[in-house]
């Protein structure tokens, strides 16, 4: 499907704290958190699940420690639609 995705793999992104008009299926625990684009899916049709299409979809990788107080070096990968994301400044 035709996509014009704003971000590419490796981009650092911030998830919005709130987005009343955005897709509702953005888990609360990643809101306001920083991650890195891990996969770019573009605009997906999913007609059995919902009507119409959402904005382009990404899988965003979060370090576990960014989200919770767990110290394991593991990661959580979450699917997030574009309207929830903005560019984040990368640590050097």
């Amino acid at each position, binding site marked *: 499907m035709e996509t014009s995705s704003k971000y590419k793999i490796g981009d650092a992104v911030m998830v919005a704290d709130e987005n009343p008009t955005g897709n509702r*299926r953005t888990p609360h625990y990643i809101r306001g958190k920083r991650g890195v684009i891990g996969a770019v*899916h573009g605009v*997906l049709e999913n007609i059995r699940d919902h009507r119409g299409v959402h904005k382009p979809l990404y899988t965003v990788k979060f370090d576990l420690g960014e*989200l919770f107080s*767990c110290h394991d*070096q593991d990661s959580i*990968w*979450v699917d997030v639609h574009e309207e929830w994301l903005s560019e984040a400044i990368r640590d050097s």
Partner: protein
Amino acid sequence: MSGKHGHKPFEGHMHDYMAHIKAVEEDLEYYRAKRFEPRIIYLLRRGVVTFYDLLKVRATLKKKDHFFKVGKPQGKNIEARVRYLEEWLDEYVKGIALVSARAVEGMDMVTEDNRKERGDYDDFFKIKKKEHNGAIEERMANLEQDLTDYQALLEVFVQALIKRGWATRKDLEQRWKQLHEERPWAGGVIVAKAWSDPEFKRALLTTGREALREMGVHQGKVGKLVVVENTDRVHNVIVCTLCSCYPYDILGDTPWWYKHESYRTSIVQNPRQCIKEMFRLEIPPEKEVRVWDSTSDVRYFVLPKRPAGTENMSEEELAALVTVDSLIGAGYPLEPAQLREREAAHVEPEMPRVRPD
């Protein structure tokens, strides 16, 4: 007891009847309050069926005209009764699948409607689940009563759909038969093929559903399929923290614990500890754990590592080693010796409850 049909408790062993009872209680309430009643309420609001249709059907329905035939327990001991409850739950869940959106003409309902209706985004709409207490005798009696009641509503609902002309009895019977057809589980078939055929594995990991189409396996229709591979360095785990997204159209329904709040919360907060406590699986420290949280448009499953000592096995033999849990990252595939042990003990393979439609 067998671990059949996704009832396998994450606590307790095969003969822990209470663990089996708890699994049935959890699942039964899930299907009633999250899958079935929200759907009825959605249709009642829109006049597809009305309360009065249901009452009229109930008043005149004769036993011989029932759509669903419920069997009897094969004995009076606890094991027979627990097995009966598990099988009845399976039938109830298949009954809900029978009246899913696709079965009913003109019913324009998508999964997202059901999520709204059942209160995924608004507590106001949540349907209260029953609490379960007491000793095993009392709990079994309660479950028998609940299943009787829930089954009765399902029965009148199906009858009302037929009466109102939304579905024909013949079509529903045809579909009911399909829901009971025994087929090799697609999860086992796909994974065994990926273990045996590097070309297919590469295609599966890069193109998802496309690879299944080439293979002639039912490729499903729900969202994009992403398969993530377990390696010596990475252990993948799947979850849907918002509800229970899963490639059910290919793999069938999830085990009960996948939908349970305790799993959905703790697997993201502390993955290693969660895997260890719930599934007795200790992920070696040198491996990275990756948790994949699906939000419906992408559906995930794990391609587990091929067990050692299986070099000479055929695809069919390999498929028997693949468990439902291992495609979620909550278990490993069986080793050949484990499979032999299970077969010797007549433990039926673990199978998901509802087949893809």
